[in-house]
């Protein structure tokens, strides 16, 4: 059974269609990258997978639970880092994680173990008692990540998890994602091509609300393949441009 099944997902805002018939499935062990320009519909798709926004049409099934019929059961299995890692600014990370643990009904030894594990994984021990709004961007992001992985969910949805972080922080977050990859189904969104190469083992190129192409790494680190397009390592950008703008290389040169 696929961990995440998305079927013909559509979301309109008024007359504008932000997500236009997206379908895919994600298995355990997959780190799926949503790659797309700003405004492609990545966040909107994630908001529907996590049950924040109701789809205009289509279906989301998480570990067998249809989000429309059993939202609470489905949400129990998901960890979600919304774009920008919102949190309660006046709380300390400790109080914030305690709140999330309360809502998720974590109890006793299990609760203590999970809290310790999440805090250790994102390494926020030193700032646990400091109000979140006094933390640096990197720590804020890590607090958001801690909240997402707190209950050790099978499904992780991370919206631009490394956006705005410095190179060391980016590296730390990517390492964490790779560590967790084997036991979970993970979706991350990004507009950074190198991120896909660094952490994903599958990727969808999304633009204007549609999946334009699906790709994965070539054997032996020889780069990535999207449909008929192949890209050498670190050369995804040309393929990305060609797929999202529909222009060939010669057309681009002429322009």
């Amino acid at each position, binding site marked *: 059974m696929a961990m995440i099944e998305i079927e013909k997902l559509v979301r309109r805002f008024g007359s504008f269609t932000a997500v236009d018939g997206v379908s895919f499935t994600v298995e355990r062990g997959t780190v799926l990258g949503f790659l797309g320009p700003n405004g492609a519909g990545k966040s909107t798709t994630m*908001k529907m997978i996590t049950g*924040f926004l109701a789809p205009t049409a289509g279906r989301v099934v998480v570990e067998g639970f249809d989000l429309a019929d059993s939202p609470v059961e489905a*949400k129990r299995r998901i960890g*979600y880092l919304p*774009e*920008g890692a919102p949190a309660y600014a006046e709380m300390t990370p400790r109080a914030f994680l305690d709140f999330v643990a*309360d809502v998720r*009904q974590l109890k006793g030894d299990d609760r203590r173990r999970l809290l310790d594990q999440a805090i250790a994984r994102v390494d926020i021990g030193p700032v646990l008692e400091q109000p979140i709004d006094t933390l640096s961007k990197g720590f804020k992001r890590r607090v958001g990540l801690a909240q997402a992985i707190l209950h050790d969910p099978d499904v992780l949805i991370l919206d631009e998890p490394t956006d705005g972080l410095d190179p060391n922080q980016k590296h730390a977050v990517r390492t964490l994602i790779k560590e967790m990859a084997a036991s979970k189904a993970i979706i991350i969104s990004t507009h950074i091509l190198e991120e896909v190469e660094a952490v994903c083992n599958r990727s969808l190129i999304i633009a204007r609300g549609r999946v334009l192409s699906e790709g994965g790494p070539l054997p032996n680190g020889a780069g990535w393949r999207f449909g008929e397009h192949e890209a050498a390592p670190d050369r995804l950008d040309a393929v990305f441009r060609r797929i999202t703008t529909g222009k060939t290389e010669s057309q681009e040169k002429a322009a």
Partner: protein
Amino acid sequence: MIGGTIAVYRRELSGYFATPVAFVFIVIFLLLTGIFTFYVGGFFERGQADLKPFFMFHPWLYLLLMPAIAMRLWAEERKTGSIELLLTLPVRLWEVVLGKFLAAWSFTAIALALTFPLWLTVSYLGQPDQGVIVAGYLGSLLMAGGYLAICACLSAVTSNQVIAFVLGVIVCLMFTVSGTPIVLDLITAWAPQSLVDTIASFSFLGRFGAIVDGVVDLRDLVYFASLIAFWLFANAVAVDLRKAG
């Protein structure tokens, strides 16, 4: 499945005390009740051992203070985006709505409870009817719940706390004064009697006035309880509809 309500309730209630705002608020509340009771209400001059001058001004106090307490409940979540986090946790929307409302209501109950020195004073000075005073306190708390439910709902229609506050004051004002002669005279001229009666029946002033006089009518209690239930329901609908934008 009340665990979500308890978690949200605890977070919200401690949120009130996380900043000095809570203490400032309580001090203002106590100062205003004091001023109204002693200067405007003529507590001593009346020469009667009761708390009527104290309770009489509660609707007017609440009119400004309840919107202030409730304005952040949802508007803040929308502004910071934490609503996305909150509503993707495994809780039902009504659990969250209830938890937030109960937290605001408890905070009000704490402020109200801190007026107990007045009660002690009046009991020391004379022989007040304690039953009437208890009814007054419970009636006041129930009415505060009505104001809060209205304001919590209005906080969910905007991400701007100031707008939430202003909307709250306006709607609360309508519910407060709907039974007063000023309003009724205005509409009697053109509206059918049944509409006039309906509008008059919404009045907080009339119903609370009766409770403070010691007349506890079950219909008044039911009125406030159903008013709270209605606005909490509207609150959930508003959150659901306005989540996206």
